[in-house]
């Protein structure tokens, strides 16, 4: 039962402590005076009366303590006192405080930054309703290949009761490129043609306007579209007046009714969503065998997991395989979390980073714990005095913990600033390929993480030294400290253990960094199959309404190749629909004469090329022949395939002469999508298409005149590389000035093959650099730890070293003695670390390229580096020991 006024009284006791104390003293003095007056009235002399009064009163201090206790704020008061005490004592050793705070700030800052990035990408969901239930629908075969279902198959799934038992709904999304024209500029944007069930299924709310409703999908409805946030910002400056505005898409008006939130993009290529009822190439939707450029999305029913869902869908899979054996035999429905499609396989990298960051934080903690241990050792006398004066062990531990909490709080504050800075920096890393990185920000969750990291750090660093420091009885210490120090030896041993752990952790990180570095070097050294030096590419996209017939477009490309080749220093030029290491690629379905259905994924890369392409790229033939000028003039019937395709489909038997049929995905033109029959005339050596560390896929080349694309890539080999681009830009403009922007913008439009290859390795380089940075941090922290321990141990052993010298030990002997102790620490650390690294390396297995987990070079290099670092950290303090004058050293402390 506590009266409300008691709260006010407690607050006053805490925050107006001085006034409350003054009042108490005043009240007690009054009491004493009155007592004295009373005694005087009884006839005692004033002096005796005062003594008598004091005797009757009892011990003044004891009364005061009882009075204070009754105020009921003791624990809080103690805390405030501890905080004041901690700040005072930290201010007395600013060097210690600074080193400890900076070490902690680094650890907390890095961990917080990495954990918030990992949290953002891995843990926090996509900006859709219950994203964990959203599934990408697939078809799988027995060999593990998968494909997206065709339109008719998806429609069959939508009507099936088994599917309905597993999923709330299924929606088929058709993707295509559309030409968006704003003013005089046109560009190709990704469009998603969606059914009326798409938006309710995915569960998203528009940032602006509305989504597409059922009415919008009826025949005769106006052509409507919903726009991505990115396109809205980039093309229309984020102007809300976009709503209801008619824009030109594929040379016809489209009215924009809504804008999706930032980051809410599915499928990933889409910038526009428009009703599938308005899809111009309806025949594709009806082709059972057409799998390219679509997505099928489903939403799991609550309580149904993916294994159960796949089981429920088996029935429809078997029925379709029976009815349509040509297209469906061997393919069963499957699902994959949509999260995986969007986030991709950055998981291992982020987990690795998080583990590395945690290791760095642990190292920082070990350093601070070691510092605190050294500090309580020197402060043992002070603590003993406090204990003798009546402070309980709990009180002293509490006070020491308060001190480490103060350190951690300061470190946490600085660390949060470091985290915010690192996250911003991370977003700006060029070539950062993390999904949805632009939405990343430092928010209250990050602050929460930082706070938790801080408190945990304080406890981890502080509790052990505090408990150890208060283990001995005060009397022992007060007596012993005259002689030297009690427990110093065991403290030194503890600090050695900490340094050993630090070296073990550093080894794990260094090995990880070394393996990633090795992988990166090997990936960068891969022969990509063509010569990238001086190779340039320029995307050619004719203006809307120009060069619309295949003849006109082919003639334009021929003129462009000729004009570019005329530029001095340009040796070869060629034309291709999508260049390797470019962002875009196209697949075609493949059928082989004499085989009913292919045994695996029958999607192969599809390239339309000029006959000069092989020469320009510096590629080589494996068998048969490349295209000649005659193939370009009268195309048809001749295909060239790559080595991987030859091996994959003909298993070493000669592919040359085989008859195949290609049915490639339609892109942009109504006359595409017809099957192409022909014979393989040659096998060309593999070219890496995406990245040096991704093995090449099967690929087929056809003459560019066989199927002339409305856009493509002009390839040029120039002696001067990038420096040739202004002249090349002028040459292109001389053919048609609308093809290239004037001046520097035109020259910058060229992409350099060497840069594109380097760019494809950017994610690998990024993760390697981050881990390397962590490993460097770890090495420095371990070195600091070693330095501290050696310096302290030498200071403790000044006398011993003096004696040894006086007895004739040379400087070298002393140095060897000290170095041997450090190396022993490193040796134990290496053994422990190697065991941990062997386990930890599994984590990064997926990130390695052509590098074994137990790469001997990496381990050897790491051990040499660790030993060298340890010796350096030992040498600096050891030099002091060698310079010792024995006579001074022996005279004592």
């Amino acid at each position, binding site marked *: 039962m506590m009266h409300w006024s008691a709260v006010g009284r407690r607050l006053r006791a805490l925050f107006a402590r001085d006034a409350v104390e003054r009042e108490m003293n005043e009240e007690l003095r009054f009491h004493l*005076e009155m007592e004295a007056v009373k005694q005087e009235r009884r006839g005692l002399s004033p002096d005796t009366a005062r003594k008598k009064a004091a005797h009757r009163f009892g011990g003044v201090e004891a009364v005061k303590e009882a009075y204070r206790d009754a105020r009921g704020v003791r624990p809080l008061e103690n805390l405030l006192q501890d905080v004041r005490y901690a700040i005072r004592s930290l201010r007395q050793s600013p060097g210690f405080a600074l080193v400890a705070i900076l070490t902690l700030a680094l650890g907390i800052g890095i961990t917080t930054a990495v954990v918030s990035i990992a949290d953002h990408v891995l843990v926090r969901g996509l900006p859709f309703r219950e994203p964990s239930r959203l599934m990408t629908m697939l078809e799988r075969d027995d060999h593990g290949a998968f494909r997206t279902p065709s339109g008719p198959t998806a429609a069959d799934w939508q009507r099936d009761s088994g599917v309905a038992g597993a999923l709330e709904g299924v929606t088929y999304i058709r993707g295509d490129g559309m030409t968006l024209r704003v003013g005089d500029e046109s560009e190709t944007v990704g469009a998603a043609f969606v059914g009326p069930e798409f938006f309710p299924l995915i569960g998203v709310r528009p940032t602006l306007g509305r989504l597409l409703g059922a009415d919008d999908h009826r025949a005769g409805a106006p052509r409507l579209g919903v726009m991505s946030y990115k396109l809205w910002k980039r093309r229309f400056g984020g102007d809300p007046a976009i709503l209801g505005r008619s824009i030109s898409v594929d040379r016809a008006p489209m009215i924009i009714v809504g804008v999706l939130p930032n980051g809410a993009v599915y499928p990933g290529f889409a910038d526009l969503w428009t009703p599938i009822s308005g899809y111009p190439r309806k025949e594709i939707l009806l082709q059972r065998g057409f799998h390219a450029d679509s997505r099928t999305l489903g939403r799991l029913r609550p309580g149904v997991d993916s294994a159960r869902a796949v089981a429920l869908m088996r029935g429809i899979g078997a029925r379709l395989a029976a009815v349509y054996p040509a297209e469906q035999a061997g393919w069963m429905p499957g699902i994959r979390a949509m999260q995986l499609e969007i986030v991709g396989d950055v998981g291992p990298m982020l987990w690795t980073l998080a583990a590395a960051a945690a290791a760095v934080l642990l190292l920082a903690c070990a350093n601070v714990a070691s510092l605190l241990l050294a500090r309580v050792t020197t402060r043992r006398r002070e603590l003993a005095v406090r204990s003798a004066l009546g402070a309980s062990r709990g009180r002293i531990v509490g006070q020491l913990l308060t001190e480490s909490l103060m350190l951690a709080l300061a470190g946490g504050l600085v660390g949060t600033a470091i985290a915010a800075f690192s996250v911003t920096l991370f977003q700006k890393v060029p070539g950062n390929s993390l999904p949805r990185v632009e939405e990343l920000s430092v928010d209250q969750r990050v602050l929460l993480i930082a706070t938790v990291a801080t408190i945990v750090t304080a406890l981890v660093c502080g509790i052990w030294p505090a408990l150890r420091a208060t283990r001995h009885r005060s009397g022992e210490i007060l007596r012993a400290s005259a002689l030297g120090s009690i427990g110093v030896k065991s403290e030194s041993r503890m600090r050695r253990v900490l340094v050993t752990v630090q070296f073990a952790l550093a080894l794990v990180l260094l090995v990880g960094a070394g393996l990633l570095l090795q992988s990166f070097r090997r990936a960068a050294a891969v022969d990509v199959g063509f010569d990238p030096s001086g190779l340039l590419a320029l995307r050619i996209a004719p203006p809307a309404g120009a060069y619309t017939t295949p003849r006109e477009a082919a003639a334009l490309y021929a003129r462009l190749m000729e004009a570019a080749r005329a530029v001095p220093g340009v040796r070869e030029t060629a034309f291709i629909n999508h260049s390797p290491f470019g962002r875009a690629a196209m697949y075609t379905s493949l059928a082989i004469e004499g085989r009913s259905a292919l045994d695996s994924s029958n999607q192969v890369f599809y390239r339309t090329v000029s006959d000069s392409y092989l020469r320009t790229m510096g590629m080589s033939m494996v068998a048969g022949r490349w295209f000649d000028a005659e193939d370009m003039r009268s195309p048809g019937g001749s295909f060239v395939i790559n080595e991987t395709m030859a091996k994959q489909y003909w298993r070493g038997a000669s592919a040359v002469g085989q008859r195949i049929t290609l049915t490639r995905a339609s892109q942009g033109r109504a006359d595409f999508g017809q099957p192409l029959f022909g014979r393989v005339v040659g096998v060309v050596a593999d070219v890496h298409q995406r990245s040096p560390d991704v093995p090449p896929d099967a690929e087929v080349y056809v003459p560019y005149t066989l199927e002339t694309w409305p856009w493509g890539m002009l390839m040029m080999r120039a002696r001067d590389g990038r420096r040739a681009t202004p002249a090349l830009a002028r040459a292109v403009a001389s053919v048609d000035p609308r093809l290239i922007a004037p001046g520097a913008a035109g020259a910058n439009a060229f992409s350099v093959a060497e840069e594109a290859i380097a760019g494809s390795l950017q994610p690998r380089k990024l993760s390697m650099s981050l881990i390397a940075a962590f490993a460097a941090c770890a090495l420095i922290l371990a070195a600091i730890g070693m330095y501290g321990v050696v310096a302290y141990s030498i200071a403790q052993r000044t006398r011993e070293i003096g004696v040894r010298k006086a007895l004739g030990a040379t400087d070298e002997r002393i140095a060897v003695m000290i170095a041997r102790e450090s190396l022993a620490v490193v040796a134990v650390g290496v053994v422990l670390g190697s065991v941990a690294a062997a386990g930890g390396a599994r984590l990064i297995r997926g990130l390695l390229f052509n590098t074994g987990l137990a790469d001997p070079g990496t381990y050897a290099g790491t051990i040499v580096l660790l030993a060298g670092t340890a010796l350096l950290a030992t040498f600096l303090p050891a030099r002091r020991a060698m310079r010792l004058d024995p006579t001074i050293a022996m005279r004592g402390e």
Partner: protein
Amino acid sequence: MAQARERDVVQGTLDMLVLKSLTLAPMHGWGITQRIEQITKNVLQVNPGSLYPALERLQDRGWISAEWGTTENGRKAKYYKLTAAGRRNLGEETDSWRRMVAAVEAVLRTA
């Protein structure tokens, strides 16, 4: 001084005695000790080390309040005053004390 006759007041009882001595008028701490000793003819002595914590406790419960005032000699002193809640509580405590005393008395009589 016959130390044996002077008893420190047991806690709990002390609270009741303090409240009782404040029923007539507000008093300062020393005055309370004097009043209790005077009424009990020095049988009960109040130790300041018990009195002042008790006064804090009683304030926490809202049974008394304190404010600074002046004595007849013009000296500043802290005066404690019984609140309405304190008066109610004193009534209850007195009743239950009387019941207990009567009960103990009855036991002693039969024994």
